[in-house]
């Protein structure tokens, strides 16, 4: 499972970020980030299709906002978790976090944004059918 998640985040090697990716893998930080992102995507989808669900929100534009919100959460989850995990790792080693990790973290956070959005999209397709007002959103 750990390998699978790492592969997904690293695009099967295509987005391997060198030492940053190695560190993230070694401290097992991919799994909680993936888990939080999945929960976030699931919550956003459920809230959109079953709790907010009303004719006024059954618009593609509102759904896109939900998607964007999911992306923002995905970014925050990835950035904060990665930063905390790596800060703890390097504090224990007694050295500062390498400066180049900041751009790696940003890059990694955008990858998580991408996967969160994909996940919300897939969950939308799966869960929309039972929604009263939004079963034709996004299409």
């Amino acid at each position, binding site marked *: 499972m750990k390998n699978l998640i790492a592969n997904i985040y690293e695009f099967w090697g295509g987005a391997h970020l060198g030492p940053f990716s190695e560190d993230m893998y070694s401290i097992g930080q991919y799994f909680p980030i993936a888990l939080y992102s999945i929960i976030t995507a699931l919550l956003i989808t459920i809230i959109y299709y079953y709790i907010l669900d*009303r*004719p*006024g929100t059954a*618009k593609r534009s509102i759904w896109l906002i939900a998607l964007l919100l999911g992306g923002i959460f995905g970014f925050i989850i990835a950035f904060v978790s990665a930063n905390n995990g790596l800060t703890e790792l390097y504090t224990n080693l007694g050295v500062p976090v390498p400066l180049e990790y900041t751009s790696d973290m940003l890059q990694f956070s955008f990858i998580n944004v991408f996967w969160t959005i994909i996940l919300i999209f897939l969950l939308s397709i799966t869960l929309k059918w039972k929604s*009263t*007002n939004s*079963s034709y959103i996004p299409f």
Partner: protein
Amino acid sequence: MSKLYVFGIGGTGARVLKSLSFLLAAGVKCNSTSIVPIIIDPDAANGDVNKTVDILQRYKSIRSKLSFDGETSNAFFKTDIAPLNSNFRLNIQDSKKKFREFIDYQNLDKNNKALISLLFSTKNLNADLEVGFKGNPNMGSVVLNQFNISKDFSDFASSFSQGDRIFIISSIFGGTGAAGFPLLLKNIRAASPNLDNHSLLKNAPVGAVSVLPYFGVKRDEDSDIEKSTFISKTKAALRYYEHGVNDSVNSMYYLGDKLVKDYDNHEGSTKQQNDAHFIELASALAVLDFSNDTDVSNQKVREFGVENSNQNLTFNDLADQTKTDILKPLSQYYFFHLYLKNELRQNLGADFAKRLNIKEPFLNEDFYQKLNRFNDYFWEWLQQMSSNERGFSPFTLSNDIDLFNSIKGLKPNKNFMFETNNYERFTSFLNKKAKKMNTSEKTENRFMEVFYKTTEELMSDKYKQ
């Protein structure tokens, strides 16, 4: 499968048929499987009659696109309106000439001319029959006394079958209605042996509403119609009906009102377009009361009353039975109309519209266009009744967003959470109902079904006690 033949005589008859169409469109209970409206009015260009014919034709056309089976919940347009001929009228022969020509005055001998001058004024003799009898039942009783040779009347007799009923609508204070009603009744009760089903006709259950004066006309020196004669004409006619009519009718309904408004004085033709009046609605309810009456074998005389005699009636001023009969269906249809008018086009992307395949082209189809025009008539009918005296204004007739506060005297329930705006709630109910619907039905059926079910649920959800 029983039919109810409804004869609407004169302008009042036509206007009552108009009210009846709206009640049937709203789904007010009617036990007859079909209504056969027959308008009797020699005034070919009468504005009221022509409007009613247009409404009836639209009703028929809308109804023809819908199907009703055991699984159909929809009661909008449920009762079939089946015309006897294309224009819903019983055509009166030779009614396009002057009265003197009609009775062949020129060729009468001296004695008969003397008798005629006793019964008819010179003005009567020179009157053009094309615009009706202008409040002269003495002329009407001569001209209309030819039902038995009318092709439409014999078509009516041929189509009449066991179990069918007849209802006659007329006013008692005018010309056409006051004269036509006893004559028509006579031609039914003493049906000519030359007519098909004459024995059925003789024994047919017949109901009738005779409308007593409920409006006046403004004084006009050039007009033959004068409201000061209405009461005396009514008295004279009632005296005649007492012996010549009441005994031949199974259910007789008398309706009238003390409170009257003076309309513009038009003798007939296109200008005669009186505003809709509550009495006409009450008369239409008499038709339905007769249709729903399981036992019409005994003679009955009925009157109509309201609970509170207010200047402007609302649902709460009606008697309990009347309220039960019309509040829910009329309110449902009112909501239906408002949604179509104000919201449908903007909500073609909504769940229900997509699921039921209600798209822009559907709104341009003949069915929807006719429904739209029919609904405009419905709205106009409500507006006119509301501004008339005595008025009937059960709805605010406002186009604003506050839909559920638009039934006067009824306070809508508040929802616990997520209070959506009125139309949004409506759309949400439509979406919910559409989910459970059979999508193999025709679009027209699905469309009516979803709106009927939704408005029904809105009524029970928003106004439950």
